[in-house]
């Protein structure tokens, strides 16, 4: 009901200075957050990890800038635009501003397209590091692609067999294990298969995840870049004892790896200990309370079982 107050058509010098200072501060905090974001992630143990972390840092930085920018507008209005008690007067009837509206449509559009273009480039790089290819026929060995042959340092293929609820790894020389050993700095060629339901091959330290689909063999390659022991987790819900379907990846110096593989070949096959099996047996012993589940598949017979309680880094 009040006449619109005449407003200055452009902000005052103090206002401009304040906005510039605010933006500079926001920029500094965003840069600090981008840098800090590396600390929220596990150690980098594959050639893919730095690329993923780089993208995450970039988006953390941009995201922080936008979030703080919007938040400061909200806080500013909360501090300075609150109606005093019993003040029933309406605010300025600003219905819009075409130039501003075009700006905040075009700017986000350009920004996300730039992020997308950059990500597509990174995707391309990552594909050369570890391409994925679904093979239709169950069990048939897919032909090596030219890139496989070009990479002379490729090790494999290692068969990765997922079950409810165990992991089994079969190396080219026939060694079987329930923890995955990989040689450092060599491209490992994996063939992922599932014997029952969907599983997912997920190693957080590698920043890699690939669903394993029953009925297909999925070719997968990755290059470990840091030695150590990391967790391998099933990331696609696979039924009753899904949470127990975890094991370790051990990345070793190639010489150590070869020695391990040779020693493993001399080990007899034993039934691997299996947490899901233990839990299920205990449940049956206690009167089979709880809701229905399929019983765990018989644990694989392997040369090398998972080292229990060995500390993992990520």
């Amino acid at each position, binding site marked *: *009901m009040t006449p619109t107050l005449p407003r200055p058509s452009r902000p005052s010098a103090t206002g401009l200075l304040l906005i510039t200072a605010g933006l500079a501060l926001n920029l500094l905090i965003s840069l600090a957050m981008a840098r800090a974001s590396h600390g*929220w992630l*596990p150690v980098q143990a594959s050639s893919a990890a730095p690329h*993923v972390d780089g*993208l*995450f840092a970039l*988006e*953390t930085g941009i*995201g922080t800038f936008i*979030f703080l920018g*919007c938040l400061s*507008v*909200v806080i500013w*209005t*909360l501090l300075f*635009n*609150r109606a005093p008690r019993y003040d029933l*007067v*309406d*605010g300025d*009837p*600003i*219905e*819009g501003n075409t130039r501003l*509206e075009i700006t*905040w*449509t075009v700017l*986000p559009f350009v920004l*996300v397209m730039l*992020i997308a273009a950059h*990500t597509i480039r990174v*995707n391309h790089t*990552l594909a050369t590091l570890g391409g994925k290819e679904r093979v239709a026929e*169950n069990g048939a060995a897919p032909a090596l692609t030219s890139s496989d042959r070009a990479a002379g340092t490729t090790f494999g293929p290692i068969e990765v067999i997922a079950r409810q609820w165990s992991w089994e790894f079969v190396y080219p020389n026939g060694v079987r294990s329930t923890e995955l050993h990989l040689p450092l700095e060599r491209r490992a060629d994996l063939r992922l298969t599932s014997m*029952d*339901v*969907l599983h*997912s091959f997920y190693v*957080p*330290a590698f920043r890699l*995840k690939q*669903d394993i*689909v*029953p*009925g297909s063999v*999925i070719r997968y390659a990755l290059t470990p870049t840091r030695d150590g022991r990391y967790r391998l987790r*099933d*990331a*696609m*819900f*696979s*039924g009753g*004892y899904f*949470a127990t379907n975890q094991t370790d990846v051990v990345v070793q110096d190639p010489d150590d790896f070869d020695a391990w593989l040779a020693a493993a070949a001399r080990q007899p096959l034993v039934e691997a200990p299996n947490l899901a099996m233990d839990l299920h047996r205990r449940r049956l012993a206690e009167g089979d309370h*709880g*809701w*229905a*589940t*399929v019983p765990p598949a018989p644990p694989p017979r392997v040369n090398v079982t998972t080292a229990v309680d060995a500390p*993992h880094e990520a």
Partner: protein
Amino acid sequence: MTGSLPFDPRVLRAPHPVPGAPDNWKRFFGFNTDAKVIGIQYMVVSLFFLLVGGLLAMIMRGELITPPSDLVDPTVYNGLYTMHGTVMLFLFLFPILNGFNNLLIPPMIGAPDMAFPRLNAAAFWLVPVFGVLLMASFIVPGGPSSSGWWAYPPVSTQNPLGHLINGQFLWILAVAISGVSSIMGAINFTTTILRMRAPGMTFFRMPIFCWTAAAAQTIQLIGLPSLTGGAIMLLFDLSFGTSFFKPEGGGDPMLYQHFFWFYSHPAVYVMVLPVFGIFSELLPVYARKPLFGYKVVALASFGITFLGLIVWVHHMFYSGTPQWMRNLFMVTTMLIAVPTGIKVFAWLGTLWRGKLRLTTPMMFCLGGIVNFIFAGITGVMLATVPIDIHVGNTYFVVGHFHYVIFCTITFGVFAAIYHWFPKFTGRMFYEPLGQLHFWLTFIGSALNFLPMHWAGLMGMPRRVASYDPEFALSNVLASLGAFLLGVAIIPFLLNMVSSWARGPRAPANPWNAIGLEWLLPSPPPAENFEHDVPTVIAAPYGYGLGKPLVADQDRFIARSEEV
């Protein structure tokens, strides 16, 4: 004036089965075709199921407060998280938003009732039907569905006990019935919005809530047949030996994921769009300013509808999707940031230089908007293929979508409940309890869902009943937050029940708001404006402009206050 009505006058002459509102409480317990009765039926049923879903969540968080699986059996945990998701989506969020559609659409556009009152009532009564079906699955042998709310085969078709009637069977049946109910509702809501607006109410004079409701219900009409078809095929695979999704019979489990996400991703927009509408309705009232960029905000709703229908493959980035498809769906997913960005900036523009009144509904709006900006940023991260390959299916995703579904959508739902409570109950609520509810909810939700992002970044998979000890801190915080949210609902329920029973009488327009619904008495009579529908002469949200919304406005104001 009757002659100028754009809708069929027979609607007005349709008999109302239980007259006597507002004193006749029995009308809430039967097959009533009054949209306002149906709206309250939806609200009460869905708030009951909010408590059920919340209870399931608190048992889950009790399990997860320690790394080993020690509170319930892992199979029970799987059933709990499946039912938590299902109850919250299909029995809390969808029904409560349909409740708002019922309460708000007819008064906002000046219609006496919905276009299809009987269809509308039938759509509501399917909700208790599938609610009972879903709850019954707790007592069938083998327990409820335990394959997650995605019900991905082959896990969902394993049927360990081999019974025909099992939890998964009842779950699929319930979801299919829910889909039928939603389609019936969608036909009714879109027809009502298209055909029954008051004279003079052109599309660009329609409140944003109606725009977003139309945009959301369009998604229901396009997407739901896909989910329902997928669910029926899953039911046949589970119970009748077909192999649509079984690899050993020539089927493909990936096919189900496409059927499922073609609807279930846009379903998020079905839920969030009306909440965008709620924010756009409430901010002008409590900032005392017109909605900034009304037309663009209205059109952006349909931008979200369109884009929302072509992003579903981003749920399958790590499922063996070819690279070109991942790139394509990454681009479409990121584009969603543009129309949602338009809305967020428009809300900020509405706040700017306003006269803010920090009532409970306004606090929930502001909290919801800030949370939504955060959720949008983690959303763009998840759209980025390499990041999604790392954090997909981890607690990062759980944190992200709870920031959308709880910290944005449910905040908007609470804001709307408080805002329109006086209008539809005729009573004022108790403001200090509302503020307490807001602060407990805001702190509880941040404590609950923020630490989940760190657990996910470090590699904690979602849906686990036990986890490695390095994730303990995040989970302890999340569990404390969850219990705080359980406490936060107490002042809300107390406030709603006691205020409805004996709160002070509400005037017709307690917030001094502009809109057709505020030109009606509180609570409005059964057929709103009946024969005397006002003619709309201005765009909505004319705060500070000093122009009337409808012709002869003073007469309508006087009439709304004389009851």
